[in-house]
């Protein structure tokens, strides 16, 4: 009877995770993806996935959100951005809440940089 070792099982999971994440990046960021060598990037993905585990992002959705945010923001985004560091290091927040905060932060950053003002929008909306 064929049996898969725990190492093979882990490798299967990691390959599946990488493949789905790369597909999402290619689909939504075709310009940047075209310039990238993903075979060299998966090592960085694995390092980021390990960091996500340390922040309590243990389910694959939260971990993938963390790795994707790292791909957008850079390797040390978790320590370089004080607000993000505050959220990730909080032990009372659930993984899903942290992942949602990462997604919101990334969207607001790119909105601000593309000319829209997140804070002005908030003020206008409140008014």
């Amino acid at each position, binding site marked *: 009877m064929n*049996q898969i070792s725990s190492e093979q099982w882990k490798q299967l999971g990691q390959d599946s995770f990488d493949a789905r994440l790369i597909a*999402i990046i290619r689909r939504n960021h075709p310009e940047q993806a075209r310039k990238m060598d993903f075979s060299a990037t998966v090592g960085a993905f694995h390092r980021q996935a390990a960091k996500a585990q340390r922040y309590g992002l243990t389910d694959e959705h939260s971990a993938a959100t963390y790795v994707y945010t790292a*791909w957008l923001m850079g390797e040390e985004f978790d320590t370089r951005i*004080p607000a993000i560091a*505050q959220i990730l290091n909080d032990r009372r927040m659930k993984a899903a809440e*942290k992942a949602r905060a990462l997604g919101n932060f990334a969207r607001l950053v790119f909105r601000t940089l*593309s000319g*829209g003002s997140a804070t002005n*929008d908030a003020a*206008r909306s409140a008014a």
Partner: protein
Amino acid sequence: MSMPSPPALGGPLGDALAGAEPAATQQLQQLAAPAADAASKAADLQSQAEAAAGAQAQQAIADAQAQAAQAQQQAQAAQQAAADAQAQAQAAVAKAQQAAAQAQADATGAAQQAQAQAEKAAAQAQAAQGQADAAAQQAQAQAAQAQQGLADAQSQAASAADSAAGAAEAAAANATKDLGSEFSNATPAGLPAVPCACGDCIRKAVDPAVPAIPGTPALPAMPAMPDMPAMPAMPAMPAMPAMPAMPAMPALPQMPAMPAMPAMPAMPAMPEMPAQPAMPAMPAMPAANGLPALPAMPALPALPDMPALPAMPAQPALPALPAMPALPEMPALPAMPATPALPAMPAMPAMPAMPAMPAMPAVPSLPSF
């Protein structure tokens, strides 16, 4: 010269920062600043994201409404132009009719001239009517186009209200949606995706008692099976009679060894012998002069000629053959009982053709956990 490779992570932020204005960078610092605690910062980010999405949707609606108003103005202008053209045409026709009536009423010598003028005016009126019709058609087409533009603008406004994402953050927003659909929040990171969020599947996945299930190889496509003809009935087989017992076979004695045969030398060829004529019988001869008496000799028949015999090659010696052991006696075989008759087999009906079956893909083995 080698080009510098882009950074593995952070490329999108780098690209966006490269073209950002200083004011945007200041706003980013405000966004990145921590709050009193993590939960309030997360709530702040959530409300800002919702507000940004709402503002973006409102802006899109306002843009679409402006487009719709412009399209409506164009439609009104086109309709006005059509109405003006029709009014001009009607005025020309009335003038021509008036001229014709005046010409007919005038009975003087200038009647013919007036008639010609009237006809000319009528022709002008007809041309004006044609122009007016064309202008009206064009105005109607413009009005329809403007109406279509209005409908498009309203549709854009509706879809803009649904989509909160702007162009700048669209990729990140869509990717966030994709992450939600591609990655499970019930599966631990690092395990292959489990297509169910019930939780039981995951517990099963870490249960070491579940053995691996071997995969099944792919099955090739099955060709269509032709019609099978009907099989005729098979006749009954008669009963087989009983076979009598076979008597025992006596033992065979031992065969003695055969001695070796010496080699035979080659025989030279023999020449042909001519035929010999028959010899008559010779009477007996009495003894005389010291010679013994010779008995009578019978007649000898003629001998036919003998053909030449070819030389015979030497024959090799034959080795001795060992003695053959005695064969034991064979016991008697018991009698075989009679076998009963087999009943007749009924005819089998024809089988219909079977369609081709597609190939089945291989099923991968499931691991043990």
